[in-house]
């Protein structure tokens, strides 16, 4: 029903808004697949998935990825890409860890450092991509290499942070009312989320509002949809692109700190492959690499779908490292083919 409605809206009543109806259509597909998968897991795999805490654990583990993917979606909506976010996360973790443990830093100084890395990255990458007009892939590839090398220059070995105030913050749990469960001993265990989840949810809501109703958000879509016509409409294309990449890098540094808060250690191998996970989540969430199509809510559910499928695979008792990669790849493949077939058929009509 909902699907046919959106098609009708997009094509017959408001044909000039096809780009937006693509967004809605892909979002609905994502939502449906996520719900079907989760319900199937609850029905067929039972035990673990019935507890609300399983869902909240998925949030706890993926708060950083949600934030990174949001930044990635914005860049992808403007038609760019940023593959430096994964290693940037590792760099932020390592810098904060060194600051807290070896330089007697405080949490405020660590957050300041993280944001500083994000702002510097955003300024440099954004300027080179938007104003010097160099392909974003190459610039952020260099950014990825740079962060990778810098992480080991800052500190080459993995270590756990011992700072007390940080440990207190790391272990802070926020109880979710009414979602607890009774454990085997008969005690009531409340469901909880970590601080990172609150940050992630706030960011998702803020960005949703930004993309939906603000002028800047609409500019992102316009530039991604068609750069030349956006230019003719009087949109400052270069500044819009710059802001998209700037926002992505700053979000990556916030995501990096949230990741740091979750794992509580610094290591050069942290968050490896996160850039591809972020891209995959955005794609599953209905964002297209060609630009102009995408939705932050979809990205959120993209991350959750990825996490759900990993959980399902591991609870089926299959060898994790091996099968989860293959199933995730199969899932991306499935989504891409669905998207492509749906969009191709729609365009033909």
């Amino acid at each position, binding site marked *: 029903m909902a699907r046919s409605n959106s098609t009708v809206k997009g094509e017959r009543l408001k044909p000039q808004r096809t780009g937006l109806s693509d967004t809605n259509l892909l979002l609905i597909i994502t939502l449906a697949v996520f719900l079907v998968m989760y319900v199937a897991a609850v029905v067929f795999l039972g035990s673990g998935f019935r507890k609300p805490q399983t869902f909240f654990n998925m949030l706890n583990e993926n708060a950083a990825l949600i934030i990174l993917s949001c930044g990635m979606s914005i860049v992808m909506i403007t038609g760019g*890409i940023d593959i430096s976010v994964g290693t940037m996360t590792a760099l932020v973790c390592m810098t904060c860890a060194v600051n807290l443990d070896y330089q007697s830093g405080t949490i405020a100084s660590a957050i300041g450092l993280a944001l500083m890395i994000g702002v510097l990255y955003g300024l440099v990458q954004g300027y*080179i991509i938007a*104003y*010097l*007009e*160099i*392909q974003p*892939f*190459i*610039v952020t*590839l*260099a*950014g*990825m*290499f*740079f962060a*990778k*090398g*810098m992480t*080991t*220059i800052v500190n*080459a070995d993995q270590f756990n942070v011992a700072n007390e105030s940080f440990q207190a913050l790391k272990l802070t749990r926020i109880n979710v009312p009414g979602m607890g469960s009774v454990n085997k001993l008969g005690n009531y265990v409340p469901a909880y989320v970590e601080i990172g989840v609150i940050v992630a949810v706030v960011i998702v809501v803020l960005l949703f509002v930004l993309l939906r109703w603000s002028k800047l958000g609409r500019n992102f879509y316009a530039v991604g949809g068609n750069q030349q016509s956006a230019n003719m409409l009087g949109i400052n294309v270069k500044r819009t692109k710059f802001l998209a990449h700037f926002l992505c890098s700053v979000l990556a540094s916030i995501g990096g700190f949230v990741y740091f808060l979750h794992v509580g250690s610094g290591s*050069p191998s942290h968050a490896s492959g996160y850039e*591809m996970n972020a*891209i*995959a989540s955005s*794609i599953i969430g209905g964002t*297209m*690499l*060609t630009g102009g199509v995408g939705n932050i809510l979809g990205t959120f559910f993209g991350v959750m779908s990825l996490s759900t499928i990993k959980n399902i695979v591991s609870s089926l008792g299959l060898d994790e*490292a*091996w*099968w989860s*990669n*293959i199933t*995730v*790849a*199969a899932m*991306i*493949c499935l989504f*891409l*083919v669905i*998207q*492509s*077939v749906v969009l*191709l058929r729609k365009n033909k009509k």
Partner: protein
Amino acid sequence: MKAGRLEPREKQSKLRSLFRRQIFIPIAALLVLVIFNLITNPSFFAVKLDYNSAGNPVFTGNLVTILDNASELAILAIGMTLVTAASGGQDISVGAAIAIAGSVTLRVLCGDNARPETLQAPIIVAFLVCCVASMLFGAFNGTLVAYFKIQPMVATLILYTAGRSIAAWINNNTLPNISEPSFGYAGNFIPGIPVPTPILIAIACMIVIALVLKFTTLGLYTQAVGINPNSSRLNGINPAFIKFITYVILGLCVAVAGFIKVSRFSTINYSVVAKDIEMDAILAVALGGNALSGGKFNMAASILGAYVIQFLTTTLYAFNVDSSALPAYKAVVVIILVVLSAPTFQQKLTRLKKKPKMAAAAKEGN
């Protein structure tokens, strides 16, 4: 007087046209590296004739190491250039695909036994099977890109995610080891020939692709499809098929590179083999001055770009840079090279140069 004035201007325009040539960027980068190395260490390029442990004469030295290690990258750059030109996107799965190619080769040679006494199949059969498997995976990527019209980076993300797991699965997660010395010929030395075999294989690949580009319409069609798929379709080219075929060719390049990789060590480590080589291959294409958005390409510039990357790596190693810190230095060099060669940056530079000249001319006029 007039003639005298014209001459430097002509020279300048010749110089400028040389500067604008696409192949100028990798050559200039290579020259800078060569001069830099010669200044810091005059014996950097010395090539010596030594005898290896098997008693065969072999060439050793930094130059041979660079050419040897860059072979896989140069071979991949060939396929990546075609893919980039035709589809306007890059294949990020080549590293994972190399793991699969190597795994297939070992599986055919070893059979079920991880440490066989004798090879279970002739090496040439293993190589052919590896080629077919890699081309099938290339065809998979090509189908997604050409017929389902999925952006190349996204389509190849599938194999990028799954590739190394598939490679491990092919050999039941064991690490086969081959003790047969003749298997190592492709990755090391053939007895009696002092030049490392990967260099010879890379040269053979370059000759083949040069002949293909010269005597077939592949190059022309690829560029036409990359510049405008619709108008090339109206001219009777099948753009989807051309895109598809470039991915299959990249698959073949991956097979050759993967075969060299396993031959070097006679074994394979699924999670480490050819790690991040896809990024280097794309970098080689970009350093060659090719537009990553597709269209015209210069094959020689791409291949040179691959050697520049390896040269840079070896130079940094010669300065005792830690291998894990290497990417940071690489990134700085890449950014400088790319910014310097950007058209927008060059325009800004010429504008800056012109300003004082115009001011001077205005003063003279007064």
